[in-house]
């Protein structure tokens, strides 16, 4: 190949390459400004779990452990107990005295949701679970259960557009990353330990 021909083909290739780059300048950018902008998820995105309630405030979960046995990652631990007549947690005779999901083990497959006979455990589109300690990824009822003031929670069928309207409230009230001023990681471990001791049921 003559040097002239070689130069011409290189020029064509370069022009083609730059044309692609130039053309991209006018395309819509795929990156989003996370965390100020959040992506719209697919309607059935599998994120952090939540335990729902009935409208009267009773827990849907009956502690049947079917989610635990369906879980392929063995991430769920449930210990059932009998409802006391004066302190009814769920409509039937049995409720979950302890309900824990190890979110580090969880593979977010959603089989727990499918196994649940009362639609109690659902996977929400919430995905921001970063934390400083492994232990804090074991979510107990204190963080899984929808707080009474935050409604009943939503089933996947009720949120066709991904993030349901009340998810913000729920997420805020259930937030584990409630960092106080002057907070540091060491201190946080202590707080979590105290919380877990008091609330893990």
């Amino acid at each position: 190949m003559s040097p002239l021909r070689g130069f011409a083909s290189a020029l064509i290739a370069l022009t083609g390459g730059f044309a692609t780059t130039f053309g991209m300048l006018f395309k819509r950018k795929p990156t989003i400004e996370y965390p100020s902008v959040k992506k719209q998820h697919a309607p059935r995105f599998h994120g952090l779990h939540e335990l729902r309630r009935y409208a009267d405030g009773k827990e849907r979960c009956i502690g049947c452990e079917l989610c635990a046995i369906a879980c392929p990652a063995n991430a769920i631990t449930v210990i059932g107990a009998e409802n006391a007549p004066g302190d009814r947690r769920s409509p039937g005779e049995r409720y979950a005295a302890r309900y824990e999901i190890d979110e580090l083990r969880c593979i977010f497959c959603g089989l727990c949701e499918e196994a649940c006979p009362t639609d109690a455990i659902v996977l929400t589109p919430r995905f921001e679970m970063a934390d400083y300690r492994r232990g804090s990824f074991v979510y107990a009822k204190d963080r899984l259960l929808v707080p009474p003031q935050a409604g009943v929670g939503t089933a996947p069928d009720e949120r066709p557009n991904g993030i349901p309207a009340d998810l913000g409230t729920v997420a805020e009230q259930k937030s584990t990353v409630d960092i106080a001023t002057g907070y540091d990681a060491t201190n946080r471990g202590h707080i979590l330990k105290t919380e877990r001791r008091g609330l893990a049921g």
Partner: protein
Amino acid sequence: MTTLPKEVTLSIDGLPVTVPEGTLLVEAAKAVQTDIPVYCYHPKLGPAGLCRICLVEIEKTPKLQIACNTVVAEGMVVRTQGPKVEDGRRAVLEFLLLNHPLDCPICDKGGECDLQDYSIAYGQGMSRLAERKELKPKAIDLGPTIVLDDERCIVCQRCSRFDEIVTNERSLVVKDRGQRDVIATATGAPYRSNFSGNVTELCPVGALTSKTYRFRSRPWDLQRTRTTCQQCSVGCALNVDERHGNVLRTMSVPSDDAVSEGWLCDRGRYNVGFYADERRITSPLGRFGDEWVQLSWDDAIELWATRLEEALASAGSASIGVLGGGRLLNEEILLVRHVMRALGIANVDWRTGRQRQASPGARGGTYDDLENAQAIVTLGRPPSQSAPVMDLRIRKAVLRNGARLISIGAHPASSFVPATHLARLSDLAGTLAEVERIAFVWDGIDAALGAEAEAALAKLAAEGKHVSVFVPGETPNARGAEALGLLPAGGALDTRAQLEAARGGTLRILSIFGANPVLHHPAGAAFVREALKRVPFVVATDLFLTETGRLAHLVLPAKAAFEKDGHSFDLTGAVHAVNAAHGAPPDALSDGEVMIALAAHLGIDLPSPRELADWATASPATIANGLGDAALCGSLAPARDGAAGLRLAIAAHPFAGGGTVYFDDRLGELRPRPGLLLSPATAQAAGIGEADLVDLAAGGRVLHDLVATLDGNALEGVVTIVDGLPEAPANDFGEGETVTLGNVRSSRALAGSVV
């Protein structure tokens, strides 16, 4: 010699089967490993023909037949599978499920439920019921142990038939008819039985559930270990189900035909909560003055070893005593014996309660001998008090084989099967003339009665009769402790002599292995307390700080029966393996491990593990020449009072004594309240009514506020109290003593069963 039954050959699913004549089809099918679904049929309860799920096709019979109530015939051609059979079962299941609630997710039986399993195998998946399901009461409190769910019940009547055929207590019945039929007690009273837990296992659905296990777990969570029950001396095989380090339930072993026949008593089944009780001792405790100090194991063993060496050097081995061992496993007993012998200590005695002897001599029988006996004679406390599952064998012998049950002494043999009561053994003469096989059950307490019985049964044996002898132990492995040598040898001090030496100030060290003589020794609580206080150094191993442990100077945390491996003897002398099902508290050591540590400190060579295992599993040596053996029992027969007046009988109770039942609050209703049992006539003569509060006195000793219970089965002129209750210790009193009742007050307290 019985003739062999005739055999018939039939074909099941194309396979030829040869079984004895009279076999039920459902049993014959097991020979070819064919699973015929059953609900109402149970191998130990027989057919009832109620549920109709076991439908099979028999050639030349136009309609489907139930396999559970069809007897095999020569040349029968049976099909247990196929479209016709499956269609029939689907129809039966549709009816069974018609009103059955969809409780499976919360039902305790879910996962091990026959209705669930067969619905998946044969059911049609969808309900065609357009109307509302029949609603019935749920979570009915049937008694202290059982909760009934009427909606789940399929009325197979296994529970009520168990209560009729096996226990003969007949308290469970089917009430109402048709879709309204429910299980209930005949009188409406709470369902109380020593064997109530068995109905939860028999129930093929989740209608009957145990209070202690309700909603605690699902079957697939549980880790199962097979072991041997160590709550009494019967030796029932037991499956221990554990989750997250907690023993949640125990289940019977249906194949355990040699001992329990698949039944468990409630004590064996429900007394498992103490393992996790927070009052358990979790580290060695030393008492210095009035102050308890936690010690490390090294310090504790060193303290013990140093004291032993000091006492041996200054006062010799006669100044050292060893008590207890009837709750230990064979290996542990051997280690205790080995270490004590190596130190030259002969003052060893396992007998810390009333029992003087736990081996039956040369005529010991098996449970089959008991079942096949034509006459069963109980001497003293009957097995219904101390060995409940053995009592089921006796009931079986009486109800199914027509055996005669005769009780001698102050305790009637049974409230639930026909029995004759005789006051003295000499009254027995002549009544056993036409009987060939006789079983004697002695409680091992009254040596004089035992010796009298030995003479009587030797005479019967000389007449060519088959005599078998049983001595239920007061502690689970009493037989092992006796056979493996925890006995004073060659004139050494027995328990009472040791306590007397302690009061005399000549005993320097007393080591107590898993025993509570303050509560159980017939010398009386005050006597034993005084004795223990005068010993300079008392060591006790136990799970809890008992009445005896509080007086010790060193208390060592022991392992309980589900936490250690080893072997034990049952009361017939058969060896059973005990397997650890459950992790012990981190600082608890078994008595055997303590002995190993002590031996290491004292420089004593131990037998090799192989030798230990060989000795622990060998057949128990024959210790006694017979019942009431003088060399073994000594001359400590309680004085029998011929004087007029009320005589005292001291009974055992499955839920009194052992100590562990006091550390599970869920068993509160099952524990006997301090009370006394009287016959109605005796009570009337003394002016006592049902549930009155009474004070019982004998020779200056008084038991206050005993609740009176009237029982038609009780003997005239006899007052029965329960042994081993910490609230009302009966060990200050002697069997057969004359007592007075006074200070009778009527009480609004609910009447409950005392014995």
